[in-house]
């Protein structure tokens, strides 16, 4: 019986190995054919060009993903963090519970629903506000991503803020600081590794999101610009995989994008491990 449970335990290890191995096996061939630097730093993506030489530069996707994530973090983190402070410290108990429930609900809404609302509400709004030909831009994607990462940021930083020992705050207030000063100058610095974890988690969510932003970002392989239609690493895979012919270099190149995305995620996971370890050492 023990053996059977042991095998169940190994399944998730097997999945991780399987995912890593397959992404490398499928992702490397295109790099070999096209050349690592031509692919990673090439600015032109024309995989199906027939009159000219096809071009497989994935720099636009990589930069768009980075820009999009950075933008989402810049908007989402301040809002999420302040909300977390409110819930953990300032809100009356019942209000805090209500907000926690709402945040959970926000996390449960499917990405396609976010995408649809973005497409119907946000895209026309951006088009009208900035007088563009199309509102389906990087900016729309950034706003949708910023909303989507809020739950991760609020949940994790709230837990970290609540875990700060009450003595710290009591000491600060005994020295004459007001509650507000204490939250920002004592509690927040004491919870910094938890907050860092929250931000890294948010980065991971934002860079991996596909279906919500495919509907609002215009889906054109431009170099990123706030008011340009763009394509992310995730949306490039999602939108092109269904028509890239099996066995073609185009399809292999899409697997390579998957590999690059996976490497980014692994890097983020390493960061996560680092911050979680730091937190453990603090306590």
């Amino acid at each position, binding site marked *: 019986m023990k053996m059977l*449970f042991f095998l169940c335990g190994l399944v*998730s290890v097997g999945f991780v190995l399987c995912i890593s191995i*397959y992404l490398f096996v499928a992702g490397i061939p295109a790099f070999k054919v096209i050349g690592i630097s031509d692919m990673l730093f090439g600015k032109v993506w024309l995989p199906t060009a027939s009159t000219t030489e096809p071009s497989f530069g994935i720099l636009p996707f990589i930069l768009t993903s980075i820009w999009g994530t950075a933008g989402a973090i810049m908007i989402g983190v301040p809002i999420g963090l302040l909300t977390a402070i409110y819930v953990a410290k*300032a809100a009356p108990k019942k209000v805090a519970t209500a907000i926690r429930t709402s945040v959970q609900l926000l996390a*449960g*809404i499917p990405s396609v629903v976010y995408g649809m*609302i973005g497409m119907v509400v946000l895209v026309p709004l951006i088009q009208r506000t900035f007088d563009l030909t199309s509102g389906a831009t990087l900016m729309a994607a950034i706003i949708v991503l910023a909303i989507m990462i809020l739950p991760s940021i609020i949940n994790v930083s709230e837990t970290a803020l609540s875990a700060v020992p009450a003595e710290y705050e009591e000491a600060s207030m005994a020295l004459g600081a007001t509650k507000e000063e204490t939250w920002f100058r004592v509690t927040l610095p004491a919870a910094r590794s938890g907050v860092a974890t929250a931000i890294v988690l948010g980065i991971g969510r934002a860079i991996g999101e*596909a279906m919500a932003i*495919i509907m609002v970002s215009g889906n054109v392989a431009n170099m990123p610009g706030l008011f340009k239609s763009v394509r992310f690493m995730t949306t490039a895979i999602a939108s092109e995989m269904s028509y890239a012919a099996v066995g073609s270099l185009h399809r292999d190149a899409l*697997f390579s994008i998957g590999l690059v995305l996976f490497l980014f995620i692994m890097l983020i996971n390493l960061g996560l491990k680092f911050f979680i370890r730091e937190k453990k050492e603090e306590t």
Partner: protein
Amino acid sequence: MSKTTATTTITTNSDQVPFFQVRRKLYNIIVRGFLRLTTLVTVGLLIFMIGYILINGLKHLTIPMLTTQSSYIEDTIGIFPNIMNTLYMILISMLIALPLGIGAAVYLNEYATNRRLVTTIEFAAETLTGIPSIVFGLVGMLVFIHLFGLKQGVLAGSLTLVMIILPTIIRTTQESLKSIPDDYRHGSLALGSGKWHMVRTVVLPSAMDGIVTGSILAIGRIVGESAALLFTAGFGLRLNSLFKSLQRSSASLTVALYVYVSERGEMEAGFAIAALLMLITLLLNFAATYFGNKLKKR
């Protein structure tokens, strides 16, 4: 940190009190204002999204929409096949993931003796949580369709979903196993029960709340998943029986929403599906909170 606070207090007691007090008061008021404002933004966004989808969607959620399939000939749209596909995928992926996940949790909590192995398995589960769904979709396609030779359909989609929901089930089951007092186990063993008998009759029944919570969360993920299903379950909008759908391109509700809205411009069907998804999300959320609270009380 405490040092700066101390200096502040001293300055407050000196002669420049009035200006300093005003500045501090102002700081406090502004800080409070910002905290309230951002919270209002967060909650407001949620209320807006739920309201917007339900107001625009519920009116399209008619009986024909829910009970028929789309027809090009009659030019009607129905989402019944997609409801069924989502249900099929919940059924099959839970059937596979539940025993695997519970087994893994039982191993980690009851049987494992090797500390390093436990860390490895927990690390693997954590890693799985962080992988984006589109990557699961890619690997699912490579392994289940290219390697195993399955056709796009519910089976390949469900197997991909198993990878996604397994960590959730492991984690929640493990949490509730940890909350069971060791006295239960000792009592059972002292009465002469074997380890497996103890797990089956004492440990697992006491962990039921956690398993139910985990299942609800997992179902929530399945219902909301889309990117991982694009190339594994496919885009098919036709109605199939459970058995036939296994190997036939079958769009879940989420994928159907994407197809209708992005590729066919059928906003009514899109809003109907979005409203249905929203209702399911609300329902699952309340269920998860209910069972989660029961678990916490213990």
